[in-house]
């Protein structure tokens, strides 16, 4: 089997130097996929022939002296909730069986314009609802570090594909931690940009006020390249921000002196963090302090209500977004039977959705229903405001907040699947960034009993570059991101 694919930066340099070709990279990618994915199950769909043809086109451009971007000829993977024209998009749900997208997501159109080669579509929790990739109708993805463990979720397939070196980069979506948490559990870098930084057009919606597309890679420097390719305003998404996307790579100075990092006061940390996670994260903070950053305590008193507010808001929005799966316009439809169209809707949705998706649709419908709206949904939105104010106040005192990505390293498959609430609590450190719309990145900061630990950096809205700069400075001084799964 070929070696794990190197970083995007390294591969781009080797392509530019004529030391490899896009075809060779795509062939290596599929060689590893063929060898590893039967056990990992990171991919739901692949597009081998199309990818090889696109790689050849990239090589032809290079032969003519053209290069569309640093991503030209680089193989990448997409979470199976980001649509590509002519390709399936199932969201790991039976209800979208057979669906073929008639259009490109804006992110996909931009990646293709940049010359990136999409090799396949990765596994996820159904409609991105979960934190373990066990809620996939196609079965779970396994963690490359230990196949008895979960890769996290919901973007578990994308995280596992990068960790296993099948692709140097992949894309996911993060609604409550669905990029950062699997990145942490698989020992790779995962970034959730500022809400609105990246277009959501063509991202199959879960919770529209929280969803954001972002990259997975091995380094923060790669994430900067990937974000440059996809960020920016999109007329197709009225929530995409008008501010032009900066040159994220240029912000990576390696220098954190003059920056102040906020760490959470003990009283705010009610997480059940394991000693190993606490130790690794403390060491990472100390490393950045040695690099010249100042560290001070900050308080985010309302983050302890984050999970509760998140599940009310996310399920309410999901119940509305998922109303479109009715067996009429696309996807699976139940067999005709007694009753008119209402009965058809009810049977189609009963057969098509998995248990967790049904649970969330029911909760969301309940909290939006007459008599409960103020008590649950509006209350959660008010708590969201208080949480945002906490962050506003904290960012008066610091430039970024550093904390663990998850309270513990990768858990065993099946360990939490019997108790949804236990799994929800795994998102305790990640949901706040979604509620407040902040940029956040998770980077590897060492191992706990042989499993990766994630270090999370949150920034002010639109300060994605600061977050990446801190992550990159850390990676220049340490080697934790170079660790590979043991095989």
């Amino acid at each position: 089997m070929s070696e794990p694919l190197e970083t995007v930066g390294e591969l781009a340099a080797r392509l530019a130097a004529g030391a490899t070709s896009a075809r060779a990279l795509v062939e290596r990618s599929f060689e590893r996929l063929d060898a590893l994915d039967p056990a990992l199950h990171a991919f739901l769909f692949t597009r081998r022939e199309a990818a090889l043809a696109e790689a050849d086109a990239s090589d032809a451009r290079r032969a003519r002296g053209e290069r569309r971007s640093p991503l030209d000829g680089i193989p990448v993977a997409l979470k199976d909730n980001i649509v590509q024209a002519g390709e399936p998009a199932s969201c790991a749900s039976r209800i979208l069986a057979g669906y073929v997208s008639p259009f490109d997501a804006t992110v996909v159109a931009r990646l293709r314009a940049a010359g990136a080669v999409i090799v396949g579509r990765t596994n996820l929790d159904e409609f991105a609802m979960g934190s373990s990739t066990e809620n996939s109708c196609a079965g779970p993805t396994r963690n490359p570090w230990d196949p008895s463990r979960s890769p996290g979720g919901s973007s578990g397939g994308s995280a596992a594909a990068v960790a296993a070196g099948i692709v140097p980069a992949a894309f996911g979506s993060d609604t409550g931690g669905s990029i950062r948490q699997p990145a942490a559990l698989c020992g790779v870098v995962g970034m959730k940009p500022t809400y609105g930084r990246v277009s959501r057009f063509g991202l199959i919606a879960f919770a529209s006020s929280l969803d954001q597309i972002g990259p997975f890679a091995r380094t923060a420097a790669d994430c900067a390249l990937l974000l440059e390719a996809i960020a920016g305003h999109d007329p197709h998404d009225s929530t995409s921000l008008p501010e032009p996307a900066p040159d994220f790579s240029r912000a990576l100075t390696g220098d954190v002196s003059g920056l102040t990092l906020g760490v959470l006061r003990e009283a705010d940390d009610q997480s059940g963090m394991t000693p190993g996670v606490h130790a690794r994260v403390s060491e990472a903070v100390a490393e950045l302090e040695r690099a010249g950053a100042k560290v001070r305590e900050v308080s985010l008193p309302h983050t302890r209500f984050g999970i509760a507010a998140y599940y009310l808001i996310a399920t309410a929005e999901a119940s509305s977004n998922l109303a479109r799966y009715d067996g009429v316009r696309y996807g699976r439809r139940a067999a005709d039977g007694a009753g008119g169209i209402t009965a058809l809707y009810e049977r189609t949705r009963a057969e098509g959705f998995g248990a967790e998706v049904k649970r969330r649709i029911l909760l969301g419908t309940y909290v939006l229903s007459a008599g409960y709206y103020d008590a649950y949904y509006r209350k959660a939105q008010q708590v969201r405001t208080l949480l945002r104010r906490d962050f506003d106040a904290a960012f008066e005192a610091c430039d970024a907040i550093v904390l663990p990505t998850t309270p513990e390293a990768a858990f065993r498959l099946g360990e939490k699947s019997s108790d949804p609430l236990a799994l929800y609590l795994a998102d305790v450190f990640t949901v706040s960034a979604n509620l407040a719309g902040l940029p956040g990145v998770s980077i590897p900061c060492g191992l706990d009993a042989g499993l990766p630990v994630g270090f999370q950096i949150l920034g002010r809205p639109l300060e994605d570059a600061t977050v990446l700069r801190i992550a990159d400075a850390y990676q220049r001084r340490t080697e934790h991101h170079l660790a590979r799964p043991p095989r």
Partner: protein
Amino acid sequence: MSRISRAEVERIAHLARLRLEPAEADEARRRLEAILDYVAQLEAVDTRGVQATTSVIPLATPTRDDVPGELLAPEVAVANAPSARGSAFTVPRVLDDEAEG
């Protein structure tokens, strides 16, 4: 005291257009109860006079010029339909349906 009754679960399921088997409805009631118990912690937060956040970005609706552009062609729009005739989706009887639903 239970926060949500079996009858309420069935009413919600109908609003959500989800048909639940009796065992599923029991399970859903038990799970929803656990989640509602958990989120009840929000009752302790003083939110008097606090604005609700519906979006983290300003909600001024952007406008653009009304310019004709490329849209999905009708045959493309129905290409994924489980059942279509020409450029139309086909569905079971709709009229009178709510009376029985």
